[in-house]
């Protein structure tokens, strides 16, 4: 039944896409003197209906994102962007910034934008090979915040750097879901984050197989208020498998990543670690060992229809209803995110939010997917995710720790 509904939706969707391809959208840009404007719109429609257990997530269609963006330049040296998600009632604004680009070695950007941390988080969700970001990309990377950043390219573009100051710690730790009991988010709990990232492409000027090999390292640090503000572990669908701990002191993030593409194939790996201090957070106000959230992922993609991944598979060689059936890509991601403490404090491990020795928990996920790029405006993503929670008591299912979820996404961008 659920598959039938899905097929019906795709069949309704396809003729529209064909028409769109034939009409050819006019370029949505305008120029008035030195003032240039580009308009963009992007949409996500999700069908959540392939789960192995209804407790994990109800079957439903979700109009997930409706992003409208305006960007452009004022004269040649000043860029701007204003991007909003009309489906987000609480915090609709995404990127809102100005960038002074006169010197490519040292551009200055101010406003609201992504804190430079985490390859997966820094990749647009509309360019991601999967329906959901990785666990660490969506939860251990900070996301967007207000701040000022200096960035540029040096050493013949082989080194790209970004570094800046931000008011808080990004929006990924401001939980938008309904809060659990005992959770208070009256104001962002992390203040004055300093973050920096360096991307290296040492062989970019060569013609060998390593030309598209890229490494990234990033670090971020901010002061976290006393309170129940520790990192929270959530499954792909938002179930909390690790509840926040009481923290206080500094929050420090480290991360490394690598990306390699060669023709239709790409491999990506990333590791992130977040450490929260717990100064005077124990029973009797003693200091506790830091609580640690860390994780990794390994991604492989393969464009079956031969498109060059680095060149952009989103523009298939043979778009649907014109010369072919579009572009096809298969993708897989293995990942893990785990939570623990840096020491035992001489105690047995417990789950209470002031435990010296935090009882660890972990989510391991395998995502298998297929992406169908119909044309340069549209794609359909099929993802199946199998997750395994380490601690049965903190699994979303009463009787088991392993479960499947599935989602089909329709994406439209212009």
């Amino acid at each position, binding site marked *: 039944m659920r598959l039938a509904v899905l097929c019906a939706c795709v069949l309704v969707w396809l003729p529209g896409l064909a028409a769109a391809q034939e009409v050819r959208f006019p370029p949505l840009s305008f120029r008035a003197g030195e003032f240039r404007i580009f308009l963009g719109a992007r949409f996500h429609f999700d069908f959540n209906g392939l789960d192995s257990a209804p407790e994990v997530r109800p079957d439903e269609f979700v109009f997930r994102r409706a992003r409208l963006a305006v960007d452009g330049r004022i004269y040649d040296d000043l860029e701007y962007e204003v991007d909003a998600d009309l489906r987000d009632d609480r915090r609709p604004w995404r990127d809102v910034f100005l960038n002074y680009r006169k010197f490519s070695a040292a551009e200055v950007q101010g406003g609201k934008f992504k804190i430079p941390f985490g390859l997966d988080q820094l990749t647009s969700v509309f360019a991601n090979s999967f329906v959901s970001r990785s666990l660490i990309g969506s939860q251990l990377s900070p996301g967007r915040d207000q701040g000022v950043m200096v960035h540029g390219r040096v050493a013949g573009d082989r080194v790209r750097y970004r570094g800046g100051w931000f008011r808080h710690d990004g929006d990924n730790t401001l939980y938008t879901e309904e809060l659990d*009991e*005992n959770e208070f988010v009256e104001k962002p709990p992390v203040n004055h984050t300093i973050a920096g990232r360096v991307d290296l492409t040492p062989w970019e000027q060569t013609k060998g197989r390593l030309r598209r090999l890229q490494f990234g390292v990033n670090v971020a640090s901010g002061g976290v208020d*006393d309170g129940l503000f520790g990192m929270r572990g959530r499954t792909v669908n938002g179930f909390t498998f690790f509840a926040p701990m*009481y923290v206080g002191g500094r929050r420090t993030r480290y991360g490394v990543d690598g990306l390699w593409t060669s023709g239709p194939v790409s491999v990506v790996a990333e590791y992130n670690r977040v450490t929260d201090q717990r100064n*005077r*957070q*124990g*029973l*009797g*106000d003693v200091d506790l060992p830091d609580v640690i959230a860390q994780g990794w992922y390994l991604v492989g993609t393969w464009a079956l229809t031969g498109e060059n991944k680095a060149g952009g598979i989103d523009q298939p060689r043979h778009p649907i209803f014109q010369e072919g059936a579009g572009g096809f890509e298969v993708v897989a991601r293995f990942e893990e995110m785990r939570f623990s403490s840096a020491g035992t404090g001489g*105690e*047995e491990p*417990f*789950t*209470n*939010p*002031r*435990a010296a020795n935090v009882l660890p928990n972990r989510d391991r996920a395998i995502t298998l997917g297929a992406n169908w790029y119909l044309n340069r405006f549209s794609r359909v993503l099929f993802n199946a995710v199998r997750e395994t929670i380490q601690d049965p*008591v903190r699994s979303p299912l009463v009787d088991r720790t392993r479960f499947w979820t599935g989602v089909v996404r329709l994406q439209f961008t212009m």
Partner: protein
Amino acid sequence: MRGLSAARTGVRAVLVLAALLVTGPAAAQSMDDFFNDGVVHEIRLTLNSKDWASLKQNYKENIYYPTSLTWQGVTVPNVGIRSRGLGSRSPTKPGLRVDIDFYSANQTFLGLKSFVLDNLTQDPSMLKEWLSMAFFRRLGLPAPRESFARLFVNDSFVGVYVIVETIDKGFLGRSLGADSKGGTENDGYLFEYDYIKEYRFQYMGSNLDEYKIFKAKTREKEADAQIWGPIEDMIQAVNETPDNNFNRDVSTYFDLSKLARHLAIENFLAEDDGILGYAGMNNFYVYRFEDSQRMQFLAWDKDNTFRSVDFDIMTRVNDNVLARRTLALPQYKNDYLNTLLDAAASAMEPDAEAADKADKKDALPGWIEREIVRQYNQIRTAARSDTFKPHSNTEFEAAIEGLLTFARERAGFVKDRVAEERRR
């Protein structure tokens, strides 16, 4: 040298003996020791100071905080506490529910999964709750065991509390004996009455949501029809069964003789906020036995007892459908009056040893008076040093005097009224 060696051996022996004396009692502690009302216990909780401040600031919320619990050398880490109570909630002396298993499902303390630290803010005498439960047990009905404690939070004295045994599966198993199959009787349906409106056992129709004032404490995940369907059936039967079938039909739900006994004990204690409370039913649990329709009331939260010596024996009997229809039947009215006389006799029963020596037994203090005096002497110092209680020491002493008056005069009043009631 030999003398020195012998001395060392002797010192070692003393140290070993001392170690045994220190560690021995801790290893031997039991639940009975914890509820031993012959001593004032000392309970220590260690919290983060911000949590204690937050608990007091948010005392109307049921927010849990982690703590470690220490009693007589036994320390239990990883325990959850929260503010509790209805009218007794207090920001200066919060009543506490202590859940041993809140963060660790299998953790117990002396076999207990939880207990209550009653803050005694509604009773200047501090004795009513403890004395009432002891009287219920004395007259053969199950009731929580209780004892007194000085509570310390982060090594600071925060007041005198009563340790109250929680009504849960453990309590049921200890109190109700064996089930029909010879096992422990505790796997039925337990409900805590949740006071939200004035209610006196009227039938509220077939919508089961109406009956969720009986808050499920066991088997909570079962279907509504499974949990509250029999409650609705029972209340419908109590309300709609014709008089001539009432005994037969309603007896499938209650041991009506035991129900009459429960009501009589509440009345003897001049309970103004119980099953026949001034603002409707309040302060009780109901347990539905395993594989049965049979239910039983269980006493809870008795700090509004000892209202007055002349609290009438038929107070609000006619306001409550279940009480009115049950006591309209002569055999249960007789059970009710007999229990009042039992209670009077039990309350006035002199100490056996003293009675053997005394010429005039009637002049000896009865059981309730002796218990008041015993416990008053035991808690007096701690109670007077409790600066967090909402009453002055003068009010404390006056309340004790009031209790003693009740203890001396209540039985006589009740006996006279029972005789009068029987003459009608």
